[in-house]
């Protein structure tokens, strides 16, 4: 039967075999190069900025980048960013946590299969659409409620940003809650708890690290969000904490500056990168914090 041997080429571990991993490695390094590129882009031009502007000035409240005698106090941008992100969290945190509790502890699995995707649709909507929504629908709506509200203000984009990050809070918190093992839940029911008591007294405390991490991640998203604030919060560089007033975030500053005075070489131009660097550090820190919380406080049941 087997006396017909076909001539088979004897293959060595060919050159291809050795070259492929090198090619793949080179391509895989593109992501690292990208990171380095981001850091270099930001740091090189930001350092030109910091060579001319003192740190003390940067933490001032006077932001007049285009004046003949410009000043670069970034505090208005920082507060603008923090205020809008806070508003967003004030919307997303309660809504997110309650909807997560509802999904994970109250709803039947059938309903959950219908409701969860609806919430996830919110996550797939581009931010420009939210921006349009904030400007075109939410601001006019809010103006009916608060007549003193400006056409550009921090409130409306803050709220809409809250809706945008809501799915992050909801689905990550829900994941954290559903990963609390069922026997813990049963233990609580066995002691005569109502659903609410099980959810708030046992499940939420058990899942708290996951929930906090979800919040932090959502904050990071809010800080980095651009289009909603660019469209709906105006570009006021005044230092204010009045959410009825226009404000500017770090991201919106970058957009404003690049769509306006993009001529390179001026301090104004380099200020763009200084703000970019600040934004990068802000989001990086919050992301790392979220990771740290999940790692450190992950519970082994």
């Amino acid at each position: 039967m087997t006396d017909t041997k076909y001539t088979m080429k004897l293959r060595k571990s060919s050159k291809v075999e050795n070259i492929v991993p090198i090619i793949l490695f080179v391509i895989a390094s593109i992501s690292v190069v990208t990171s380095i590129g981001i850091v270099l882009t930001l740091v090189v031009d930001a350092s030109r900025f910091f060579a001319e502007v003192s740190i003390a000035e940067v933490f001032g409240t006077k932001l007049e980048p285009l004046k003949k005698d410009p000043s670069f106090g970034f505090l208005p941008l920082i507060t603008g960013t923090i205020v809008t992100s806070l508003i967003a969290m004030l919307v997303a945190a309660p809504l997110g946590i309650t909807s997560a509790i509802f999904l994970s502890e109250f709803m039947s699995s059938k309903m959950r299969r219908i409701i969860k995707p609806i919430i996830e649709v919110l996550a797939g909507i581009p931010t420009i659409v939210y921006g349009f929504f904030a400007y075109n629908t939410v601001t006019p709506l809010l103006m009916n409620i608060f007549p003193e509200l400006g056409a550009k203000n921090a409130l409306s984009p803050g709220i809409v940003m809250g809706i945008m990050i809501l799915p992050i809070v909801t689905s990550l918190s829900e994941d954290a809650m559903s990963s609390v093992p069922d026997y813990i839940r049963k233990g609580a029911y066995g002691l005569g708890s109502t659903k609410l008591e099980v959810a708030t007294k046992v499940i939420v405390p058990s899942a708290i690290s996951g929930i906090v991490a979800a919040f932090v991640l959502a904050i990071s998203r809010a800080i980095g969000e651009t289009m909603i604030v660019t469209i709906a919060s105006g570009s006021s560089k005044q230092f204010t904490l009045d959410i009825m007033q226009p404000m500017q975030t770090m991201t919106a500053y970058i957009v404003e500056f690049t769509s306006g005075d993009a001529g390179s070489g001026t301090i104004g131009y380099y200020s763009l990168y200084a703000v970019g660097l600040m934004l990068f550090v802000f989001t990086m820190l919050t992301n790392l914090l979220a990771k740290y919380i999940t790692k450190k406080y992950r519970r082994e049941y």
Partner: protein
Amino acid sequence: MDNSVNTLRDQERENLHLDRKYIDLNKSQERLKKRKIINIVAQSMFSLTIVFIIFVLGLLLFNIIRSSIGWLDWEFLTGRLSIRPEKAGIKSVIMGSFMLMVVVAPVTMIIGVATAIFLEEYAKKGTIHSLISLNISNLAGVPSVIFGLLGLTVFGRIFGLGSSILAGGLTLSLLVLPNVVVSSQEAIKAVPNFLREASYGLGATKWTTIRKIVLPSAIPGIMTGAILALSRAIGETAPLVVLGIPTLILKFPESFMDDFTALPIQIYYWTLDTVLTKEYANLAAATIVILLVVLFLLNSSAIIIRNKFQRRN
């Protein structure tokens, strides 16, 4: 049982007033009524949250669709851009988005899949692996506007690509790269190891095994991830704005070096320009409808691919 232990227990027991009831059943019963009411109230409030979320989604879609009615027609889809709202069409805008994707799709697929293969098949352990993985998870958290700055500086200025389709596409590619890498990694991980072993057992080399066995099995997962990444890229605005896309480009894009406009950009400019001409809001809404339809189609196709793939396993 040891007797001494038992006596000790008896003594302890007396100290503990076992017959004393701490919980007053009647009071508990009253309290229970309250607890149950609170439970019901909370439950209805929670369900209101969901209703509210659905309401907001509905409001968003309703307002957009309402504004687009009367504006979204065949002429709008196939006409050329104009500063006159009643004449404006978005053919070149759709084309711009499409050409962007023509850049993003292959670039992210090649880099993303290659990176995933490298991580999953070649560098499973060690510092290089953890360096690249860490790096990718960090990149995923970088705000898109920062990618815009990177694109502006590197592609726009250093490479001299300006605000062309190529510059925009490359910028968006880097932006969604982490998504593609992670989903490709998942897909490659999901290929059972016994298939790899079978291939090696027949005398196949590593690369042959990856090419002929691993990748074909992972393709549906990779495609799903890539489509989802595309659907993120197609809606991104900030990086393109930062690249400095001119406000008015009436020309139909023809090459990848042309300046262009894309769906989200056009929505942005029209939204800004509602002060010039109110009807721009309707144009923006109509363009949003188109963008959402495109996203819906992309996501559905991803789901279909995923389901088909799951059924086969």
